């Protein structure tokens, strides 16, 4: 029983950590983008203020049941993904952040990541807003684009290490060093896929502000938007941790984790800050071009490894 409560505490702590880190990263991103544009930018805690304000908005409307529960589905997906990604390894400084860590399986994670998007898409669909639907159409189309190199990279890793679970990959890395170096093509493919995964420029066509009226979430306000942003923060963190886990052998304490995730996160952020926007089909073709080539290379590399 004790253990159970410890786990629950660990679970809550992990979610909170993910939220905090994710939201701070969100603020930092805004700051960085501002700096690249020669602006000062908002304070690093701006996202917290925004979320707080949105929670405090008094009224909210919905267009029906699906829209009502869509953010719940999003946060379900985010938290569940987080639960299956080992946040911290070993007996670091903060052992309670070793979350429930059900054996995370990569294929499962790939699918679980879609759960939230699909749930959101359904909610968005119910609003009847054409802009939102266009956004969904673009977003889903692009997802098909970036998932391919991503999965290729994952398959390459799985084949190379003969395990499909994240913990397995990390054990392998404990012995053979970071997969980032021992499987470089997979890393390249995955990072290129990551650009799309975070929906920063040039792959922000789904949410294109000022073209689609902020796209998919355009009918979501107040608590819905707040929950979506919370979920987004957690999800971003979870994804980053996943990348760190599979390519950089995770992190044993919080600082290393923050450093590693931040470094990784800077790739899409900085790339996005200076890039114009791709149209959807251009984005898809991009993903099915070089990233897929590297993915294929990674698989071939893994076969002969």
């Amino acid at each position, binding site marked *: 029983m004790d253990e159970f409560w410890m786990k629950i505490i660990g679970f809550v702590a992990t979610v909170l950590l993910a939220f905090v880190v994710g939201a701070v990263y969100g603020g930092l991103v805004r700051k960085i983008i501002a700096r690249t544009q020669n602006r000062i930018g908002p304070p690093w805690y701006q996202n917290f203020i925004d979320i707080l304000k949105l929670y405090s908005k008094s009224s909210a409307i919905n267009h029906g049941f699906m829209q009502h529960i869509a953010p719940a589905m999003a946060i379900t997906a985010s938290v569940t993904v987080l639960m299956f990604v080992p946040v911290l390894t070993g007996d670091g400084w903060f052992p309670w952040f070793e979350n*429930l860590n059900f054996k995370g399986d990569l294929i499962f994670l790939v699918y679980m990541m879609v759960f939230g998007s699909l749930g959101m898409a359904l909610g968005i669909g119910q609003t009847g807003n054409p802009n939102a639907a266009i956004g969904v159409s673009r977003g889903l189309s692009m997802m098909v684009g970036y998932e391919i190199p991503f999965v290729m990279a994952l398959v390459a890793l799985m084949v190379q290490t003969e395990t499909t679970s994240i913990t397995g990959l990390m054990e392998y890395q404990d012995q053979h060093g970071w997969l980032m170096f021992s499987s470089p093509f997979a890393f390249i493919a995955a990072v290129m896929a990551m650009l799309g995964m975070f929906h920063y420029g040039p792959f922000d066509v789904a949410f294109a502000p000022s073209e689609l009226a902020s796209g998919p979430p355009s009918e979501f306000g107040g608590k819905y938007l707040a929950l979506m942003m919370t979920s987004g923060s957690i999800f971003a963190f979870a994804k980053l941790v996943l990348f760190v886990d599979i390519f950089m052998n995770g992190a044993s304490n919080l600082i290393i984790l923050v450093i590693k995730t931040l470094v990784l996160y800077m790739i899409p952020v900085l790339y996005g800050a200076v890039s114009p926007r791709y149209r959807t089909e251009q984005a898809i073709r991009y993903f099915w071009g070089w990233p897929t080539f590297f993915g294929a290379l990674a698989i071939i590399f893994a076969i002969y490894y």
Partner: protein
Amino acid sequence: MNSLLLVILILLAGAVLSFLANRIMPILSGVMSFLSIGAAAVIFFVQVSAADSMAIPISGFSLHWGINAYSWLFGAMVLGLSVFVALYAIAFMKGKDRLGYFFFNFNLTIMAMMGIVFSTDWVSLFIFWEIMTWSSFLIIIYAGISEGRVGTKYMIFSAIGGYAMFMAILVSNSLLGSFQIADLVSGFGTLSLGNQALIGILFMVAFGVKSAVMPLHVWAPRAYADSPMAFTAIFSGLLSKMGIFGMGILMISVFAQGTIGQTFIFSNILAWLGAVTSVIATFYALIQKDAKRLLAYSSIAQLGYIIVGLAIGTPLSIMAALFLAVVHAIFKGTLFMVVGAVERQAGTTNMEELGALIRKMPWTFMAALFSIIALAGVPPLGGFVGKWMLYESLITSGFGANYFLVIMVFLSSTAAFLYSYRFLFGLFLGQEEPEFDHVKEAPAIMVVPMVVLALLLLVIGAFPGLLFEPIANAMAYMGVDVNWNMTVLSNVWGDEVHMEPLWTSILVMFVIGATFLTFKTRRNTRYVTTKDIHTSGEIPEAHENMTFSVNFYQPFERAIEPVMKRKMDTYYNRIGEGLESLFGFARKIYTGNGQTYAIYVIIFLSILILIGETIFNK
């Protein structure tokens, strides 16, 4: 009386009775059909055991029937789903004409499928196979769309398949001296390589047609889409599985005996065909604007996965294939029923016209939602379990080409999200239209089967072991042993997915999130219509519909344009045209002119006299 015979006879009697009942009262027709299928199902699940077997001597042959774990799996699938669909069909077909005709063939198709499942020799299997073919053909042309062209296409391909099987059966009989399936299994290894290939390819063509593998699939989209939805649920859900049933026998047990099974080439070609089928079919599914067509293409794609699983042939992949087969039967059956309900209530299935039925048909939507989640393979529903096993089996198979196969399958199933969403969006979401204000929820008799099946998917997702058990038994019968666990999925590398924590996590978080959303400032949260959206201040008129539903995936279409340029259909049409002109030429032999015919006689006579020595002198 033997319970196997009883099942068949009840279904046959049901067919005849429902044909006759139509004369008394049309609705009785459907009721008769439902009752007979229900009775057959009860007998099947209660009475039929592995000990049952029988032989019917018939003109020099004897038709052997029996049941084993493998055929029980498919039998259970057929009758289990048919009961629901038959119940649904009562309401769905109400008010249509020629119900007797429909339900006669409906029952006959199900009878034929049970016959296929029960058969332990090829002749019996072939007889029922052909009965299944023509009875389903008769239902396809029931709708009368385009004057049976769809039906003709179906019939041509079925005939190709059927006759390929016929030939394979006869060749194997002449080589092995037995029509028994078991004898083919045991004797296949003794055949020469050429004969193995011949029999293998012929059987593959036969089963490939029904399971709509790549070059043989062109009949499927229209046939699925144009028959009445109550039947398409059977057609796509079960009839296609008969192809899988046969392929399973071949891939799992027959080829394993032969040298051909060890060369990899055969199964690899098949696996790639399956994968390519699924990718292309998925692409076609997502450019459809008719929900029925969308589901039809989706069926083809899903069957592609199953074929990949069977062809790879590791224990896990076979298990994945069989699991997907069962789950696909359930969710695709449900989805076609959903489309049927929508068609019946709203009068159309065009996704560009329909929309926002969610508030009018909430139960139908729920069934559709669960089925779609299962179709897309998103956890935690049943579809995910099958997909996971398929991927893991490919990844752990240790064969280079399979790693690219997994990418193909993945591409297909990721693109499947697109059409999954399109389906739900097109029918149930989007803006409400006054045109469809009159739409009401389908009658309970239609809703209940759909919802029950949808819930079944939920249960299978939580306890996949419920399905693993019969599947593992079936595979054990076929000589492949697998380990299974009630709620844990595992692959050969020892990696596992535990469904329990997954379920707990998802459920807990969902409940927390939903509760939070619902109770926070609940009083202030209110429903507004879908007209009340951000439209830059413009207030849309009641008749203005702003749902984005035309060319929904246009950007994606542009991206995949090079693939879509080549259509199998056009190749067949070209072949067809070529043959037509060739036939036209042949037909000209009969000029209709008496003199010509006389000249033929003379020429023939002279030729024979000239070369008679060489022909006859042997």
